[in-house]
C-alpha cells in the first residue's frame, strides 16, 4: 500500500550485518503527510535499525527510501541537506555535553541553516518555552534529568523546522516518572499535524495518537494496520503474542 502523498516511503529494503545476519528483510512502509506511525516489536526485531536507515544513519543493501520524494538511498543525494529537514530523537538523548542547552539548540540553526545568532536565539527560547524548559537555557545537559534532556533533544530537532520527525525509542532510557513529560510533548506534536515515525513500546501513546501501527519481528514487517484494528484484532499470531506480553493486565 503506497500512498501518493507519502512523506516517508520505505520500499523493499534489505540490510545485512556482515554476510550472515539479515537485519531487515524486504521491509516496506509509508508514512503519509501528517500521519503518525508507531513501529513496535520485540527487541532485536530491527525497528531501531529501520528508523536509522530512513535518514541514512545506517546504510541498506538494496531497496529504496524516499523522504518527501528525495531518494535517501541514492548515493548522489546530498544526505546532510536531507537530514537537516528531518528531525531525529534518540533513545539516549545525545545532547552535546560540552554545550549549554541554548547552544545545543542554536548550533544546527546557525551552522546548518545559516540563521543569525539572534534569530536562532529567539527560535530556541520559544521552543524551550514550548517544552517547559525556559529557565534551563544556560545549563549543561548533565545538570538536567533524563526527561528534561529528552525534551531538549526534541526541541533541538524542532529547531530545524523539520518536515517529519523520527523517534527512536525516545522513552526507553527514562525513569518511569519521567516518561509522561516526554510523551506529552510528542502527543502535542502529533496533534499539531507533525509527520511522525515513532519506534516505541509505549502502547498507550500508540493508541492515543498513532494512525497506524507497524509490528516488526525478526527483521520483517509482520503487520501494518490501523491503530484501532491493531489493538482490537491483530492479524498475526506473533503480534497477538507480543501484545499479550506488553499490555497491562
Amino acid at each position: 500500500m503506497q500512498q501518493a502523498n507519502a512523506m516517508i516511503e520505505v520500499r523493499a529494503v534489505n540490510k545485512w550485518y556482515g554476510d550472515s545476519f539479515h537485519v531487515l528483510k524486504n521491509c516496506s512502509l509509508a508514512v503519509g503527510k501528517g500521519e503518525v506511525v508507531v513501529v513496535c516489536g520485540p527487541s532485536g526485531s530491527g525497528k531501531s535499525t529501520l528508523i536509522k536507515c530512513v535518514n541514512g544513519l545506517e546504510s541498506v543493501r538494496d531497496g529504496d527510501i524516499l523522504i518527501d520524494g528525495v531518494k535517501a538511498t541514492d548515493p548522489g543525494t546530498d544526505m546532510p541537506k536531507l537530514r537537516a529537514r528531518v528531525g531525529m530523537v534518540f533513545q539516549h538523548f545525545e545532547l552535546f555535553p560540552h554545550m549549554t542547552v541554548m547552544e545545543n539548540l542554536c548550533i544546527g540553526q546557525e551552522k546548518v541553516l545559516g540563521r543569525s545568532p539572534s534569530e536562532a536565539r529567539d527560535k530556541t527560547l520559544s521552543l524551550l518555552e514550548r517544552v517547559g524548559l525556559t529557565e534551563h537555557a544556560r545549563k549543561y545537559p548533565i545538570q538536567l534529568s533524563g526527561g528534561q534532556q529528552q525534551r531538549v533533544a526534541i526541541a533541538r530537532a524542532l529547531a530545524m523546522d523539520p518536515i517529519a520527525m523520527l523517534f527512536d525509542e525516545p522513552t526507553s532510557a527514562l525513569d518511569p516518572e519521567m516518561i509522561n513529560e516526554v510523551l506529552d510533548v510528542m502527543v502535542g506534536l502529533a496533534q499539531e499535524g507533525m509527520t511522525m515515525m515513532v519506534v516505541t513500546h509505549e502502547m498507550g501513546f500508540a493508541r492515543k495518537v498513532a494512525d497506524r501501527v507497524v509490528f516488526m519481528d525478526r527483521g520483517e514487517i509482520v503487520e501494518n494496520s490501523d491503530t484501532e484494528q491493531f489493538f482490537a484484532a491483530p492479524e498475526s499470531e506473533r503480534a497477538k503474542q507480543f501484545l499479550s506480553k506488553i499490555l497491562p493486565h
Partner: protein
Amino acid sequence: MKGWNWGGFFEYLTNEYMLEGALITLGLTVFSMVFGLILGFLVALMRMSKHKILSVPAYFYTWIMRGTPLLVQLIIIYTGLPQLGIRFSVLESTLIGLTLNEAAYLSEIVRAGISAVPRGQVNAARAIGMREFQVMRYVVAPQAFRIIIPPLGNSVNGILKTTSIASIISMEELLRRTQVLIQEKFLVLELFIVAALYYLVMTTAWEFIQRRIEKRLGRAFDVQATVTEQR
C-alpha cells in the same frame, strides 16, 4: 661544602645566557607541540580513514617515527641529508625532527580521543544536518580534546625535556648552553644543577597550567562546578 662553589651556583642561577637558553627550550617545546598536534591530528584522521591509500601511509609514518630514536632522526636530518644535497640549518633540523617525531606520538593520542567520543554523538550531529567536517569541528573534536588533555599534558612535559637531545646537533638550547659554560668555567656540577632546576621550574609551571585547562574544559561535565557557578 668542599668542592661546591655556591658563588658560581648563584651567579649562573640568574645568568642571562642560561635564561635565554631556557627560553629557547620553551620555544622549541611550543613550536613542536603546536605543529606536532596539527600534523598529528591529520595523521590520526588518515589512520582512521577507511581508505587504505590514507591509512597505510599514516601507519607507516608512526611506525618509523616511533620505532627509531629521536637522536638518530635528528642526526639523519642534520648530518645525513646533506649527502643528498638537502641542507637544513641547526634550528630547522631541530624543529623538523622534534615536530615529525612528536606528531607520531600525538597522532596516537588524538586517535584514542576521537575513538572515545560515543558513536551516538556523531549520529546526533549528522541527524541535524551537519556535514562531516562540521561533525568533527563542533561535536567530536571538542569532546576528544577534553579527553586527551591529560595525556597531552604528559607530552608537553616530555617534550620540554626531550628538546635537550637537540644539543647533540649543537642546537643552542638550555643543555647546550650549560655545556658551553662548563667548558669555560669548569663548574660542572653547579651548572648542571642549575640546568636541572630550570627544567624543573618549567615542568612545574606547566603542571599548574594544565590543571587550569582541565578545570576549564571539564566545567560542563562537573555538576558541582556548574551548579555553584550559576548561583
